[in-house]
């Protein structure tokens, strides 16, 4: 899939231990890739797509992902759709979920301060090495070297879906055509899997996504949005640093 992952561990532990923690994260992410990559012919998802896998033989992770995709399809009014392009493709959920789990594993192994950035989706815990919050910039949707918002967070997730890197990769399930209206959607909340899926769904909704995202604020998911014509919107409680 070619996603680059950046990991920073801020725990005060000996280097070899920190390296082991990072290795564990990489092992996990490779496992996810082997199971869910639609680019790998022998992945579980590819076998499933070809009808070679009986339901009883689905792995627990596969079942979890499929359940989550079904819930999200319902909660987003069909705009998060793992079948939008035809055959099953749960990547929109797997991306955020795999990092959410990676962070949980780090936590279980004793890491209390870290962030993981996988291709723009970030999960962070605890404080930055300097003792303050993790400061995360939201990439400006036109100027690659600038940020439009800076967030200050300790525990939480940030996911951004946008059209400025991979172009029209998000389809509007109602038309089957590339979604129009929003150039960048960032969702901030406790769970990266949901933040990622919400960002993708909102992008698929076009301008209607703005109102939909506003409702998510009540459940702890804040957002920052930029439209195709350069208007910016954000929720009241977005943890933006001044």
């Amino acid at each position, binding site marked *: 899939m070619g996603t680059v992952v950046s990991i920073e561990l801020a725990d005060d532990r000996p280097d070899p231990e920190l390296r082991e923690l990072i290795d564990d994260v990489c092992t996990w992410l490779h496992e996810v890739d082997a199971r869910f990559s639609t680019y790998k012919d022998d992945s579980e998802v590819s076998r499933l797509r070809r009808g070679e896998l009986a339901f009883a033989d689905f792995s627990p992770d596969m079942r979890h992902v499929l359940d989550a995709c079904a819930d999200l399809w319902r909660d987003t009014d069909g705009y998060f759709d793992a079948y939008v392009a035809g055959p099953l493709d749960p990547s929109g959920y797997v991306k955020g979920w795999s990092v959410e789990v990676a962070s949980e594993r780090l936590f279980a192994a004793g890491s209390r301060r870290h*962030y993981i950035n996988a291709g723009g989706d970030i999960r962070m815990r605890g404080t930055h090495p300097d003792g303050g919050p993790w400061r995360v910039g939201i990439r400006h949707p036109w100027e690659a070297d600038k940020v439009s918002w800076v967030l200050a967070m300790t525990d939480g997730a940030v996911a951004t*879906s946008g059209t400025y890197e991979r172009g029209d990769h998000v389809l509007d399930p109602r038309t089957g055509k590339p979604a129009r209206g929003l150039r960048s959607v960032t969702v901030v909340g406790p769970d990266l899997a949901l933040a990622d899926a919400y960002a993708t769904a909102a992008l698929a909704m076009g301008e209607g996504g703005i109102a939909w995202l*506003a409702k998510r604020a009540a459940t702890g998911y804040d957002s920052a949005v930029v439209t195709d014509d350069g208007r910016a919107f954000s929720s009241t409680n977005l943890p933006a640093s001044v």
Partner: protein
Amino acid sequence: MRRSTAAAVGTLTGAALIVGVRLSVTAPVVPVAAPPVVDLANSVPSAKPSATASKAAGSSKKKESASASASASASKKAPAGGFKDGVYKGKGAKNPYGTIQVQIRVEDGEVTAAEASYPTTGDSATINPPAIATLKQETLKAKTAKDVAAVSGATFTSKSYQESLQAALDSAKA
């Protein structure tokens, strides 16, 4: 707000009334004009059969739908599905977002449309503005990434990573 006098009783099966709530007051920051207040009594009856599917917003799990005590504003022929035809309004129901009143249309004895609206009278003062979910519009800024530990952006490929802000931050730390 106007209390509806309970008259007809009917239990409306759940999901049909958990509909997307539409604002009847246009909030200035919402870029899409809010739809006008819906009054089912004056609108054209919809094509059947869509008792449950037509307006379900899916995302709303709120149980604010008014209990079905409703005052009938019209009543026509004998019910086939068990309800009298007409447009019915429920009692206003308070929930964290404000006060909502639900109305339904019954045609041929079945529920064919449902809408929910906020009151637009002086009682709108009871609606706490932050409870109406909106995103506020602001100027799009372009700041340099000073003191930023990471950058969240649309998924970048390995190739574009190299040119990305995150890569610059990572190499600064290595």
